[in-house]
């Protein structure tokens, strides 16, 4: 298996083409079209797999001897994995992903990473969030800068990017605007309804001192946006059944907002911890079960509402794990990893590039073939129709799968 850098960009392995049995338009036919926002409004859902998901036990090279030799205890046997191709399987818990793959609704990009990889969780996550080179420290995130551009200082609600969480990630912090963190729209609304805040705003909304003015402005926006988000979440609440896991609830919240006329284009949500140093099988299986159930419900909900073509869900993790297992039934921190893209609007599907090369490693780690910043450029340019070069701070080539 020889890795050809950049070639996948032009070449495209349409491994899954034969499995695209049902054309999109037939699937959507007869589905209710209830969305208040005109179909065609594209939405990105970024799902962070925190802790460093083991990519090699996610998309499994089922005919690679090096894989099984490196992982005598934790390698997933060919007959356990769900087959995607003759060579490639997917983790047995990811049944809905397998289904999406078979129906041409999923793309998999292997060996995504960045130069000079850092094996510390927080540093590597920082790099993914900010999209900085690995020797620079940036205080803003790529989606925060998208938000800056999308809002341009003048929008009524800077809610183009929302994080379904209580605490905001660096990824959503921009220079001028910061995204909102909202785990539960109703709870956010109720805590914003403190009467004192409204009275203060009424009397002191305009502050001379710039820092105080910034705080009052942030407070005012928080209250307005909490109200806006809450109303949107109520307007067309999803009635579909989701698993009662945290991710299930979060994706249901996202679906409800997607069905409303809210201006949000990007949703951000996390699942973890995938830091599987010990007893990886159980932990990854448990998390994948949660992931699979929630994403499966989300996909059917979107399809039922006729919005699956407008939503793209992508996953990432701050790094992959080492090729060889460790002594505790787990894996230690590694480098490059795969990403999933799920949605009805993909231009290219299936395995977008070669499986990782396990025979040429760097200190026991995969060598990245695709820089994640090119993925970001693709999402920003092709999906969100934003100016990726400005947001990423440097001219960045987009890929061709969207």
């Amino acid at each position: 298996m020889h890795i050809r850098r950049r070639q996948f960009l032009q070449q495209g392995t349409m491994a899954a083409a034969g499995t695209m049995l049902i054309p999109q338009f037939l699937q959507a036919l007869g589905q209710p079209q209830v969305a208040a926002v005109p179909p065609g409004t594209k939405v990105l859902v970024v799902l962070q797999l925190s802790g460093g998901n083991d990519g090699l036990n996610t998309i499994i090279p089922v005919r690679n001897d090096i894989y099984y030799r490196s992982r005598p205890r934790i390698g997933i046997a060919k007959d356990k994995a769900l087959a995607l191709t003759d060579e490639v399987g997917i983790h047995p818990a990811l049944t809905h992903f397998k289904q999406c793959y078979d129906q041409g609704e999923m793309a998999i990009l292997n060996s995504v990473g960045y130069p000079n990889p850092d094996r510390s969780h927080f540093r590597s996550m920082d790099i993914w969030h900010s999209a900085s080179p690995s020797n620079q420290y940036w205080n803003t995130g790529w989606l925060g800068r998208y938000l800056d551009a999308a809002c341009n200082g003048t929008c009524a609600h800077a809610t183009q990017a929302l994080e379904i969480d209580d605490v905001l990630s660096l990824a959503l912090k921009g220079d001028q605007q910061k995204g909102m963190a909202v785990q539960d729209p109703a709870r956010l609304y109720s805590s914003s309804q403190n009467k004192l805040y409204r009275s203060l705003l009424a009397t002191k909304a305009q502050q001379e001192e710039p820092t105080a003015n910034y705080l009052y402005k942030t407070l005012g926006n928080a209250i307005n946006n909490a109200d806006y988000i809450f109303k949107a979440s109520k307007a067309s609440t999803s009635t579909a059944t989701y698993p009662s896991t945290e991710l299930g609830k979060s994706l249901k919240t996202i679906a409800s907002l997607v069905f409303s006329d809210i201006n949000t284009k990007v949703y951000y949500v996390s699942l973890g911890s995938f830091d599987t140093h010990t007893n990886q099988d159980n932990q990854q299986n448990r998390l994948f079960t949660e992931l699979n159930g929630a994403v499966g419900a989300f996909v059917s909900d979107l399809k039922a509402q006729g919005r699956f073509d407008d939503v793209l869900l992508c996953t990432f993790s701050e790094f992959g794990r080492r090729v060889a297992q460790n002594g505790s039934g787990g894996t230690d921190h590694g480098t490059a990893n795969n990403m999933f893209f799920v949605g009805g609007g993909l231009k290219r599907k299936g395995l977008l590039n070669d499986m990782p090369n396990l025979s040429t490693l760097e200190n026991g780690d995969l060598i990245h073939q695709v820089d994640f910043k090119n993925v970001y450029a693709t999402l920003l340019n092709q999906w969100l129709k934003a100016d990726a070069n400005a947001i990423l701070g440097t001219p960045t080539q987009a890929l061709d799968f969207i």
Partner: protein
Amino acid sequence: MLLQNHLFWRSGFGPTPQMQNQAKAFTAKKYWDAVWQSAEKAPMPLQVTQSMADGMMNGLGQPGGQAQMESEASREVLRKQSRQNIRNLNLLWINEMVESPAQLREKMSLFWHGHFACRSLNAFFQQQLLHSIRENALGSFATLLREVSKSPAMLQFLNNQQNRKNSPNENFAREVMELFTLGRGNYSEKDVKEAARAFTGWSFDLSGQFIFRKGIHDGGQKTLLGKTGNFNGDDVIDVLLAKEQTAAFITNKIYRFLVNDAPNPDHIKWLSKRFFESQYSIQKLLEDIFTASWFYDKANIGNRIKSPVELLVGLRRQMPMKLHNEASQLVFQRALGQVLMYPPNVAGWPGGQNWIDASALMFRMRLPQILAQGQAINLKTKGDDDADMGRMQPADSPILPAVAARQRGVATINWEEIVAAFANVNRENLYQQLGESLLQMRPLPPKATLEAFAQKESREQYISSIMVWLMSTPEYQLC
């Protein structure tokens, strides 16, 4: 009161209720002398673990990185203990910030803790580094820099253990120049390479002592920032300290921390020249700042956003309390984005407006109500994979249900002490007095706005409710 509280906030974590009452005629010099005298004494070490012998082996908590000398199970026990110790160290230090009369020392230690940002899962290393910082926080920057650079925590964090002759690792050398001394753009890539060669051999042993490993040191000639010699690590530090740019870089950063996020170039020039000439006396620099007339200019008062730790410590000082579960402070730190011992990256906390987003601001404004009125915390913080090591829940998750179950709230406030401190104030002046003691912004929020939410049945209820509301304002985020 405004000027004295300005000094108390910037040189410490704000005034306690008693300090409000001792208002003497304010002169910058007299007050500075008092601040200095309270902080001068060498600090007691904050200790959560006795020694490396507790099992805090080199590289602990960095799976795959350590010798396989223990079974995985016993290593996991040690890691767990170490994480707990780091949390204890965090809480112990927070208490010190609240209670210590040496406010200036703890405040500057917090500054240096961010400047020399370091993560280590080894509690013993963390404890050691924190002590070096607190010991030298007000002394000589040259000594502080050298001590920190030789600490096992920093050597490990910046990979100097992997920096060997003929196989250099530049991480340590780069950060010493970029973040600790000169700042970006004041050295070349060649300088980084040469400095890295000089730092080869800087290492530490299993007892947590700095050692120089001659065998892996590159003794050859190096050229660094225009100087040539067979430099070792100490020589590099000397070369860096001999650059006035180091004084300018540090002065600028301290000014932004203590005075104003937008530095005045004339002030910086004046301060940094004197800092350099004093051979990096932090005491002299602080005295220059805190006795300068411009420090008390309106433009420098009440416009600095408190960091989450400053906010929390300030609340505990201004509203003395007994916390029912001290660990709840870890939840606050996580929710607000500043967990001691866990800086976001080697550059430390960016500070200023970076502290504020909608969720953080709303939580900040709810914090006094959570502490004083038993409002539910009602929030889940993100885990930290470096600290949690893949366990299923964030390290502090057991705290949340425990706190939620406690209907009486997170803390019991010592209102008596506060009421006593304002005993001599007439009812009609109370709002003004409370406001001026808590807020550094003028004018205060309109009295009628806050009184509409006050409880007026008794003097104590009035004071307590007005205080909580004053501390729930955007203005209270500033000092």
